[in-house]
């Protein structure tokens, strides 16, 4: 039985998980700002200051409770999902179904984003919510299959064991198609880059359009945290966790996360928005069959090597 490569840390470290999530969100914001380094580092700080000093506004007949829940929900859901992510060789909660835990909590983003759009009772925001749900329907299956492929090769849903199973060879080498599908779906999870139609300019901001002040800040933080979390989850799943020469495992985890995040943002910036029906085609006609083929190939590999 493969042993886990990750030790559980004391529960008190859980207080630092929100800080870690915000640090990831900051890193994602810096990479999205782009351009010169000094400016990119300052932009998220200036934006946050700007939004913190803006008054909060509302539409005429919103569903207030749902609106608040939707806005805050994104960040909360990502913090919950991130408890299973290991930092180096420590994990806060190396649950025995950690992979499913992460996927399930990220799926709750469907609800928070749609509700943010619906509850404000504004037509553009509602249209943004529709776009997000249509997009989510297309990417959720390929994402789940890509993630399950890694679990299958490791023979476990525990994140620590997935890391341990990559001791000889990282999964990015064994299942490259799953890695690519995962990256594409990671961008879609956080509606960034070409999948940003729910918050697009042609809908006057879409789901974001009616938010101002601290509401906008928290929602944006949730979006960036989702992007950071998806990048961070790629590390134990496909890139061998904290494995690497010379430096401690925690440092390698951070470096790999930042590398994946930089790759996602760089590719996302070069492409125009993919409108709903085009992405639906991409998700169902290209990503899903690709993910299934990779799953089949991995099954065959697992059966042949007798791992289990």
């Amino acid at each position, binding site marked *: 039985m493969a042993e886990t490569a990750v030790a559980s840390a004391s529960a008190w470290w859980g207080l630092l998980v929100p800080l870690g999530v915000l640090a990831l969100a900051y890193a994602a914001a810096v990479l999205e700002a782009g351009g010169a380094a000094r*400016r990119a580092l300052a*932009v998220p*700080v*200036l*934006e946050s*200051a*700007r939004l*913190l*000093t*803006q*008054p909060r*506004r509302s539409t*005429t*007949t919103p569903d207030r409770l749902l609106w608040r829940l939707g806005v805050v929900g994104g960040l909360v859901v990502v913090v919950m999902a991130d408890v299973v992510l290991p930092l180096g060789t420590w994990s806060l909660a190396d649950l025995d179904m950690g992979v499913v835990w992460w996927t399930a909590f990220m799926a709750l983003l469907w609800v928070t984003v749609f509700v943010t759009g619906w509850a404000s*009772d504004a*037509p*553009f925001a*509602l*249209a943004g919510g*529709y*776009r997000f749900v249509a997009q989510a329907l297309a990417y959720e299956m390929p994402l789940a299959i890509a993630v399950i492929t890694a679990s299958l090769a490791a023979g476990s849903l525990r994140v620590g064991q997935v890391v341990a199973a990559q001791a000889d060879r990282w999964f990015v080498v064994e299942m490259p198609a799953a890695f690519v599908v995962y990256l594409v779906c990671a961008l879609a999870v956080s509606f960034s880059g*070409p999948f*940003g*139609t729910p918050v*697009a*300019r*042609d*809908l*006057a*901001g879409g789901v*974001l*359009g*009616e*938010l*101002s*002040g601290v509401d*906008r800040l928290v929602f944006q933080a949730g979006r960036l945290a989702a992007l950071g979390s998806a990048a961070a989850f790629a590390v134990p799943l496909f890139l061998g966790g904290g494995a690497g020469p010379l430096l401690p495992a925690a440092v390698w985890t951070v470096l790999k996360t930042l590398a994946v995040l930089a790759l996602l943002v760089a590719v996302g*910036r*070069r*492409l*125009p*928005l*993919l*409108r*709903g029906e*085009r992405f639906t085609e991409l998700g169902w006609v290209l990503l899903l069959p690709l993910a299934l083929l990779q799953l089949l190939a991995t099954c065959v590999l697992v059966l042949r090597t007798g791992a289990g």
Partner: protein
Amino acid sequence: MGLTAALRSLAARRPHLFVLQAGDGLAARLAVEDAAAEHDWPLADALAEADALLVCGQAGPPWAEPVARAATQLGRPGRVLRLARAPASRAELAASVRRTLAAPPPARQPATHDGVPLPGYGPDRDGLALDHLTIGLGPVLAHWPAGLVLHTVQQGDVLESAEVESAEVMSTGGGAAGGWAAPWVGPARSVGSLERHRMASHLDSLARLLAVAGWDQEAAQARRLRAVAAGGVATVPGLERWTDRIRRAEGLRRMTQGLGVLTPAAVRRHGITGPAARASGVAVDARVQEAAYPGWVPLVASDDGDVWARTLQWLAAIDDASRLRGDATPVQHSAEGPRGRLPGASAALLAALPALVDGCELGGARLVVASLDPDLDEPAPGAARG
């Protein structure tokens, strides 16, 4: 309190501006966009995001109500800066913006509204009974033709019907300054000067289309190129590379192909001329008969008539105009403006618009409007040539 003051001073360093072009505000809007790009101040997509509303141009009586309503919906309510003409310098604009932001907030008016009526029902394209939402697009909307108001009935996010509000209503300057068509109705100029204006106009339209399509980087580049093109006779560095890049953009092509198809029959029915007509295969060009353009052949880059064909047409026209930018041949009168034969080029586009967006999804409708980009400040048909 010290922390609030510190946050406010940080906030003032990167304000988001919502730029609204009101009647005859073209020159002011272009100057504001260039200044915002230089200061690295983002242009807001939505009023709720913006720290200040910049009203460019002489916003007359029809604009009073939309601007007042927009001011209450701003991220920082009440911060409205009116620029009747282009600011004298970028420093002056920066100072005005900072003054506007530092102004004390207005007293909060109690919200008065008679409740929101429930939408009506009606059959949609599949025969299902769905809500009819009446939504007006414009006049206060980012990356939207100035002064255009499109009253739409939507079911879900599909436009069931659209109606253009009378153009004369919103362009209160009466088109006195002429918008993008100004050089063609003004005193005699050279071919090079007219072609440079045409280049700037098409680059502005492309910047708007790319912004609506969500391609920020290229939209910003288009605005930068426009600022240089309007400047002088010198070559615009990077223009050819940029037009090539847009032409080869697979993502943009797949997104816009087949959208908003303008048939040749519709072109003839509404009297559409200019790039929109040529993109549908109707090769009309007033420059064929003009002495200043000897041997001119109308250029048809693609005859599919969809949004992508119009994009290709603009790109080809930019490359053409770039070749002629140094031509000093004097022109007494040329009728081929950036949107077609003057007068009446934009009026024809507006007439064709409702049929084109009917049945489109909201994002698609925005792309169609951006691909036509009518200029409501153009002199109306029947107006005397200046």
